[in-house]
């Protein structure tokens, strides 16, 4: 326990001191990492804790971003309306997806979530007058109180930290434990009198809400939105972050997000063949660290401590 508290205190000091120590580019990059860490953690709630694999998670991320951009840029509404509206849309879409997709399991669930997300992508791509089509919607402004990089960084840091606390509390709550029970054996939980479908539905909506929050932060970070925000490639990317980091560990996907964003940033500046390098790293990770980076850490370091 003391070790965990120490770790949290240390992390807090590092993150708070960061913008005063490193150059502005790395503050921006860390902001991006925090946003994707939240996005990956929200997907881990579904995959790792509820046992529902989704290939359409970017839809929630993207619809929240699009809602905010369209309301602010096209309809000139204030961020106090746009931001909550973005989250609401993500939650509503999460509910719709859950209603349609929760009939299926395994690879069929993957296919359905993929198909539903492609529908949302198609709307963003095709509804040119509202969404700007494939050119996207530029010209979004950040709220005045977070207009500079440092204050925006602290906003993101605060929200991501608060979300992490909520997610941890959720996973440790009776509800969270029930979700993990469902992941292990649906039929047993059913026999114990749990309403499996309702639990899964709520988990799906919560995951969508946090993905929506990540999307909302990302659209303010970039100040534009394009169909690429909710493309299947983005869904796959966040899935890889979860897998590389370690499924079902919450902290793992956050580390996976950081690792992938940093690797991509560093390698793609060095060589044109960065995709090849990244691919080799992915393969190596799955071969040598099947339980993700955090699994690797636990196996190597924690095991040694327990004699």
């Amino acid at each position, binding site marked *: 326990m003391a070790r965990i508290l120490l770790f949290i205190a240390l992390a807090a000091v590092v993150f708070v001191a960061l913008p005063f120590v490193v150059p502005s*580019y790395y503050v*921006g*990059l860390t902001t991006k990492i925090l946003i994707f860490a939240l996005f990956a953690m929200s997907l881990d709630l579904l995959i790792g804790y509820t046992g529902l694999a989704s290939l359409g998670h970017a839809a929630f991320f993207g619809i929240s971003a699009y809602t905010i951009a369209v309301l602010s840029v096209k309809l000139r509404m204030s961020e106090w309306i746009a931001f909550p509206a973005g989250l609401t849309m993500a939650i509503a879409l999460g509910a719709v997806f859950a209603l349609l997709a929760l009939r299926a399991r395994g690879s069929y669930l993957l296919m359905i979530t993929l198909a539903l997300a492609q529908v949302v992508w198609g709307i963003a791509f095709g509804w*040119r*007058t509202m969404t700007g*089509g494939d050119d*996207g919607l*530029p010209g979004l402004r950040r709220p005045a109180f977070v207009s500079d990089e440092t204050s925006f960084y602290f906003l993101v840091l605060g929200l991501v930290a608060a979300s992490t606390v909520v997610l941890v509390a959720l996973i440790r709550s009776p509800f969270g434990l029930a979700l993990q029970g469902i992941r292990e054996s649906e039929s047993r939980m059913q026999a114990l009198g749990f309403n499996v479908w309702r639990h899964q539905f709520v988990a799906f909506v919560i995951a969508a809400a946090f993905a929506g929050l990540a999307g909302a932060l990302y659209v303010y970070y*970039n100040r534009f939105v394009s169909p690429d925000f909710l493309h299947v490639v983005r869904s796959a990317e966040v899935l890889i972050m979860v897998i590389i980091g370690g499924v079902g560990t919450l902290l793992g996907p956050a580390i996976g997000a950081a690792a992938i964003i940093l690797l991509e940033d560093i390698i793609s500046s060095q060589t044109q063949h960065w995709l090849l390098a990244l691919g080799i790293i992915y393969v190596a990770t799955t071969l040598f660290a099947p339980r993700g980076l955090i699994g690797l850490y636990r196996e190597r370091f924690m095991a040694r401590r327990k004699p």
Partner: protein
Amino acid sequence: MRASWIAAGVLPLMLPITSSFAQQGPIKIGLILPLSGTFAPNGEDTLTGTRIYFDSIGNQVGGRKIELIIEDEQGRPDVGLTKARKLVENDKVQILAGFVSTAVALAVNDYAREKKIPMVLSGDAGANELTMPGPLYNPYIVRTSQNGRTPAAAAAAFAYKNGWRKVATMTSDYAGGFDTIGGFAQAFCKLGGTIVQEQYPPINTNDYGPYVTNVQSGVDGVVTFLPGSAGLKFVKQFDELGMKAKYPLMDIFGQIVYEPFLPQLGDAALGIYSTLHYAPTIKTPENEAFVAEYMKRAKRIPSDNGADGWAGAHAIADAAKAVDGKVEDTEKFLAAFRPDKFASPKGNISFDKYGQLIQSMYVRKVEKTADGYANVVVEKFDNVDQFWPMTEAELESYKYRYSELKGSMTNCAKVLEKK
């Protein structure tokens, strides 16, 4: 004795701080290009063209070395913006250049405007609004490629001149498509022609048969904008189904008759007209030297992207020279682009007050030459600015934007409706 030792040690440490010595560092140019994904060939062409010019001046201008820092935007706008931030904040580049995807250019636009970083669009990014007065206009932008509407306007001028009065159009269903075909509709309507049918096959259509057979009979020609492999698939079926024998084809931007496709297409491409601001077959000393050098490096014929990259590098070097290498003085440096004039592989080049290139437009026709199939220039329009053949005021007076005209381009009254 000791004091002088100390002075000798400290002095070099202090020198870089003074501004006159900071000027001696290299001129850093950040190139943002797609080097992986669908548009990688366009990105590589732009890069090769850029390198050919800078190498020809020894990578040096105004007494300073030129340093290129190249970043892959992967065809994704948010990646492009991250790369722009890295280049400006971390690598401290003074100039951003490249940009093939319009979405990436739009994503970086606000950032560059805010940071007051000159942004030289030397890649394909053709959004009309970036260099026209309006909300997207960025005074820090200079474009050495083309905008979406001018090759389309040239196609309209050529078609009308050759007696085409009623045409059918075939356009890939995406933003760039509407911007292009809208430019054609406006120019063609104004001359007195009519579009009698518009079709918009989705970008990844595999079977163009239904679209081809659906072309209204009795038209004077078919006008297309089908980028990437779409053009290739379309024209094969257009030929096989016997339509090519009946109707002449005008390929705006030369997407079907893109040089690397020509050997594959063979006779199917013969006689197709296309409009573009470049043709590898242009017979000028500048272009012949450029093509030879390009063939040596890339082992293939350059596309317009190569020539655009070359022109971008040339314009940057000229402007840097005009301010004696002091590119950090952004306002003076940008002002130096405006009076710049030079002969390029594309023809003679100058700039308008918004930073958009004024250049020639070429109408080409596929013919069988001694070197195989090639786009031979059959008509040339000189000094084409971004509003050509209209004036800025006239273009601004129309009510509808091109993208809003999708589905009603057959109605010339609406196309030409004033505000």
